[in-house]
């Protein structure tokens, strides 16, 4: 308390004057004002441009993506991409793995995961990023301890910019929320980009519409 009061009163003594007003942020894009998640919630159908731009940007960040027809095709794609994976831990019932995240008690138990699978409720075109919350991951460490991460994303849930994304995300709804743009990376040795520095070695986004029967009740975006 002593430190708190001392700091606050020092600040009050020293506040620069004149006070500067808080600027208004530019209004959001009216095409993206629909609330809710994905096509189900009435987002305008994304132009093919937005989806392919998202894919290009994700690739620039070191990630890969595939448009897949449905959940069956998603399962097939994962099997094709990771034929030798032993432990596949899924946080979405849409694509089951060899281990259910609900059965994981302790994050340390995720250290042997070869492939983690999770559904994201929001993609951001300009960043090539997917939004993941504790509701999506169930155990947050799934996103970073898995050797490889596969993220399901509804192409209708891609917005253009981070401004649009922050308009739609309710930060207060999750103790943890993450924009992930490509895999873990470093350029700390002579600027050479290396993927898989500490977290996931690869990030694969499967663009596939959400199956309403599997939707998680909490998804961290505005309903």
């Amino acid at each position, binding site marked *: 308390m002593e430190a708190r009061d001392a700091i606050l009163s020092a600040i009050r003594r020293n506040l620069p004057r004149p006070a500067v007003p808080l600027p208004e942020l530019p209004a959001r894009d009216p095409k993206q004002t629909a609330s809710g998640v994905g096509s189900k919630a009435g987002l305008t159908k994304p132009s093919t441009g937005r989806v392919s731009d998202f894919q290009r940007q994700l690739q620039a960040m070191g990630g890969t993506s595939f448009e897949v027809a449905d959940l069956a095709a998603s399962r097939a794609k994962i099997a094709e991409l990771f034929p030798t994976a032993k432990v596949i831990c899924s946080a979405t019932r849409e694509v089951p793995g060899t281990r259910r995240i609900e059965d994981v008690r302790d994050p340390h138990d995720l250290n042997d995961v070869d492939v983690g699978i999770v559904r994201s409720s929001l993609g951001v075109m300009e960043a090539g990023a997917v939004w993941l919350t504790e509701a999506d991951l169930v155990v947050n460490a799934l996103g970073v301890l898995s050797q490889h991460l596969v993220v399901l994303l509804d192409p209708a849930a891609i917005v253009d910019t981070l401004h649009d994304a*922050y308009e739609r995300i309710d930060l207060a709804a999750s103790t943890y929320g993450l924009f992930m743009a490509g895999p873990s990376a470093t350029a*700390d040795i002579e600027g050479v980009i290396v993927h898989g520095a*500490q977290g996931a070695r690869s990030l694969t986004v499967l663009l596939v519409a959400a199956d309403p029967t599997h939707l998680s009740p909490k998804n961290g975006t505005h309903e």
Partner: protein
Amino acid sequence: MSRHVDPERRAARFIALEEHESTHDRLVWGMRRNRDEEVARVPEWEKLRELASQIKEHTLTHLDRYLEQFEGNATRRGMHVHWARDAEEHNSVVYQILRAHQVRSLIKSKSMLQEECGMTPYLKKRGIEVTESDLGERIQQLSDEPPSHIVVPAIHKLRSDVATLFAREIDSDPSNSDPHYLAEAMRGNARPRFLAAQAAMTGANFAVAETGGFVVCTNEGNADIGASVPPLHIASIGIEKLIPRARDLGVFVRMLSRSALGSAITQYTSHFHGPRQGGELHIVLVDNTRSDRLGSPDFWHGLKCIRCGACMNTCPVYRRAGGLSYGGTYSGPIGVILEPGFDIERFRELPFHSSLCGSCTEVCPVKIDISDQIYKWRRVVAEKGLVKLTKKVGMSALGTTLAHPSLFHSAESLAESALEHAPRFLLYNPLNAWGRHRELPAAPARTFRQWYRENRGNHGSA
């Protein structure tokens, strides 16, 4: 703390390592070029800079209110909020928390504030093992050196240096200096440490008053591993990191990594709004001279800094002299304007470790008047009688130009073609150690001129 830092002598040492110096220059300038390319893709960039600057200035002119709002919201969300007046108090608060949890090993991600506080040696002395998890920071920790760059801490080292270091410290193959191999060797070494750590520490890039949460940006995801694996997470947050609204993040997150490395966003942009299930989350709000700086009409704008490093990457002196030449926690132009505020005696030479070319001001995403502040620090140092003889000669050799802002600015407005020679003129006077060796790469003359026209020519706001 009083022995003063001699940046020229330190720079001369780095410049003598020819391969290091030229590689450093090339890599750092590469980041600046990547930044330009990425920024060119955002047509509203200048508008974003203006917004970012205004949001920061608004927050700083209402900082008491936003801190109280942040504290209230963070507490409601189940986080423990602590306050620390200075580095010593920060370290002791952290130590108390760790001791209460019987923590013996700690994994941390990069935090310039913890660096500023000298936290790692403090905890080490008290028997706590601290492991840096960011690759560059770990390289620096194993080398027993501070970071030389705020974004890429070991950028002054060659891959062969890292190969030798890792062979000695983590048993990697000394003859293999492939960065992929070296990064993989460190991944293998760090993973068990993440799993064994009883606590994790992070810094924060932004703290949101409206929601009581904070944001950490990394490329490795190391902050996320720390926050999600051990049960205890402590975040050190400088009081200047506050922003009012969640929506403001859009402005800052769009600018941070574009300015830093020239990527659209960091690989991980992580928002913490409470302890994870079964975990505990502590926040230490740190002043450490920030409230003093707030009261300085000349220097409070330095508190707007978002630590992107763009000013370092563009600086002709930084690129050649290397970050360790600044002898403090922060290097490059931002170090020149921050460090004298911590200890004017010790860092009295830093304001002269600059060519005043103005390129830093041009790239700064939050529009800090960096080069003007450098000039003002020269005046402070001169007024205190702390300038040593060569500097005085240097000042007169450069004409009283540098001592008088009006003359400095008219020197800037010499024929535009003279601008690309300006750094040479300023740097290669015979009294500058780092100017002796060889010539600088060409200054970013084109963008500088563009900037000059837009900012000085049109608005005349010198």
